[in-house]
């Protein structure tokens, strides 16, 4: 005898079936003892180390450089076992034998030559060419020896080869697939192999068991993109992320109060935030206007209140960890009266109207932009502020499509040298520079080619003084590095902002 199923039951069954068919939000693998999940505010736009528009945090794990930097920030052998300057313009590197790329291709001198030349190729418009512009060519002496030849003497060659864009890529694989494909499916020699990249979500890598430096302990790493501050903190608190970068300033105390979590803070470990100025666009082409802007901003109060002290006001774009730092240069003091006077002197008694762009990508970026817009308005600089999405903004800046006043963060991070901190943003005709000053250019180039450290240091002092006079950008403050960690993660944060997972242990 057939019995009709009660309607109520049918409804429940249909509901359960429907729910089970709904794809659950792409959840990352449950944190096992050998999996590390890192949540960051920066998005991944591409994983080609020669063409990065973002920090090299992820690619540092997939690729190697000839020279590495250890936990004490000393340069040590990487893919090169030794190096020396054989003449003032040639550095010779002896390459490590028996290293293969993740796809089995051999690492040799040809790979080094290919890697460097594709970045130097003007037709490719690499946004990171500034870092190695001193190199004119790479000569293959034999399969395990290369000569890096520079146009002028360059004492920094080993340092330049310790960071992107000189992370070594496999020539055959890149040529066969093309650059665009390589950026989505990278292959390197590093401790971690690329597994997958779910765009706008996460990058997954797994341990390379045959890594020349020893197999990493942590097997899987998920690099998640979580731009929303609260979501990132929540991920840490719920155990969905083991490490987050950065911790939003409002949440530092809350996280530190939790017994399972901690905050690793590195003073001066972050980027130096500034407002770039398009110095060729009137009225910014008048130095008096630029100085007025500098006087109008109260950086000390902004650092104290909005950033809650998790930053340090800076006078120049060179940080204290960098070679070439000059502590004698001081900031323009907050002086709105002087600012207004300068504007009047420059022919703008009624102020000026100008566009400005800020970004949420840096600590409290939107709030800082608004606060500064208000302070500028108070001296007559009526700003039209826009805060575009970071992924859009990051593409505008290197091709000069941004507003005349634009927020950016820069640093030497992985180089720990003034050259990387200021050359790309002060020298004319660099992708990220909106400055064109022949005196600065001359000094910057001379400093690049000066071998004697004392003389080099003096030159960087001169450059910073000149920049201070000229105000090519509005230097604000250097962020602290703020890492939020689960206490099961044994790792000490680095001043060079790298996260080499091979050094991390899970308790």
């Amino acid at each position, binding site marked *: 005898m057939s019995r009709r199923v009660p309607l109520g039951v049918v409804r429940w069954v249909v509901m359960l079936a429907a729910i089970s068919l709904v794809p659950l939000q792409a959840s990352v693998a449950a944190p096992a003892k050998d999996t590390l999940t890192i949540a960051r505010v920066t998005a991944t736009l591409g994983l080609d180390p020669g063409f990065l528009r973002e920090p090299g945090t992820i690619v540092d794990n997939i690729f190697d450089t000839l020279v590495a930097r250890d936990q004490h920030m000393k340069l040590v052998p990487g893919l090169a076992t030794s190096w020396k300057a054989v003449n003032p313009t040639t550095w010779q590197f002896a390459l490590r034998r028996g290293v293969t790329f993740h796809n089995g291709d051999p690492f040799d001198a040809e790979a080094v030559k290919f890697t460097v030349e594709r970045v130097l190729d003007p037709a490719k418009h690499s946004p990171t060419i500034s870092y190695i512009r001193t190199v004119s060519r790479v000569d293959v002496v034999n399969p395990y020896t290369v000569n890096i030849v520079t146009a002028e003497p360059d004492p920094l060659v080993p340092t330049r080869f310790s960071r992107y864009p000189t992370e070594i890529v496999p020539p055959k694989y890149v040529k066969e697939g093309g650059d665009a494909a390589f950026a989505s499916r990278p292959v390197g020699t590093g401790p971690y192999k690329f597994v997958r990249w779910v765009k706008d979500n996460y990058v997954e890598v797994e341990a390379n068991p045959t890594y020349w430096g020893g197999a990493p302990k942590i097997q899987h790493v998920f690099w998640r993109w979580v731009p929303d501050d609260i979501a990132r903190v929540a991920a840490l608190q719920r155990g969905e992320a083991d490490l987050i970068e950065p911790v939003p300033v*409002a949440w530092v105390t809350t996280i530190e109060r939790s017994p399972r979590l901690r905050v690793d803070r590195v003073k001066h470990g972050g980027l130096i935030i500034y407002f770039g100025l398009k110095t060729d666009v009137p009225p910014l082409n008048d130095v008096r206007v630029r100085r007025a802007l500098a006087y109008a901003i109260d950086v000390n*109060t902004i650092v104290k209140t*909005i950033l809650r002290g998790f930053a340090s006001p800076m006078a120049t774009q060179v940080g204290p960890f960098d070679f070439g730092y000059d502590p004698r240069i001081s900031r323009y003091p907050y002086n709105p009266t002087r600012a207004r006077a300068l504007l009047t002197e420059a022919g703008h008694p009624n102020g000026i109207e100008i566009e400005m762009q800020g970004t949420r990508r840096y600590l409290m970026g939107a709030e800082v932009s608004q606060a500064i817009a*208000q302070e500028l308005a108070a001296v007559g600089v009526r700003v039209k*502020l826009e805060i575009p999405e970071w992924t859009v903004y990051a593409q505008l800046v290197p091709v000069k499509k941004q507003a005349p006043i634009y927020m950016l963060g820069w640093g030497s991070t992985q180089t720990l040298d003034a050259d990387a901190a200021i050359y790309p943003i002060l020298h004319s005709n660099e992708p990220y520079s909106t400055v064109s000053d022949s005196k600065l250019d001359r000094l910057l180039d001379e400093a690049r080619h000066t071998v004697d450290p004392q003389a080099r240091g003096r030159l960087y002092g001169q450059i910073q003084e000149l920049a201070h006079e000229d105000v090519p950008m509005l230097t604000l403050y250097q962020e602290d590095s703020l890492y939020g960690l689960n206490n099961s993660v044994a790792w000490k944060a680095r001043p060079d902002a790298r996260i080499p997972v091979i050094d991390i242990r899970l308790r």
Partner: protein
Amino acid sequence: MEGIIGATVLGVLLITAVGAGMLGSTPYQQDLGAALLPPGAGHLFGTDSLGRDLWSRVLVGLRVSVTVAVMAAAISVALGVTLGMVSGFYGGTLEAVIMRLADIQLAVPFVLLTLLIVAVLGANIRNLIAVMGVTGWVTYARVSRGQTLVIRHREYVDAARASGATDRHIIGRHVLPNIGGPLLVVLTLDLSRLVLLEGAMSFLGFGVQPPTPSLGSLLSEGLRSLALAWWPVTFPGVTLAIFVFGVNLFGDWLSDRLNFRANV
């Protein structure tokens, strides 16, 4: 009863919002030294992370949110009523085409469309109003069409036609005034939807740009300081909730009064 409550709530909110400028408010005046002060003397709702008075910002935010909603509604009404009346009056292929357009419109996800338009034209109030206005016409079209279908067969319409009235005259003088009642009900209820929609879009960063406040953008700003202060999120949120509640009460009352069921 509910009508009186609804009307009172709305009335009070709207008057304070409109009169915000005269109450000596300072929604843009920042004072970094007075950031995140709790509600108290001098600041009824406290201050936000830049030291701006939250009371002023909530009032101006309410005004902005309501303005956006009203302007979007105006566009939707103009578009929807025209298309609805025309399709109801003439029928045939024209009606079929317009009704299919309505179906297509309803099928397009609003957020996706907004993202597209904002990516191309830029995120600002004007573009948001345009998108909200242009995509919200369907409800009004259906109501108008329904009423038009009923009215066009009435005796006075036949009489007018017999005495040589043009179509335009008939639509304008006989159909349109009769749509008014039901339209008002639908409009009132739609307003709450629009205010919430504007809130969501500004919350995501696609509408009002800083430093202009709107209830949605105030919510998103307030959320960023949630670890340190409860008031930057709570007051805008409660205001939004009360406003929507008031609008719905008023709309329900109106609907009962006019004996109209907004069955669209």
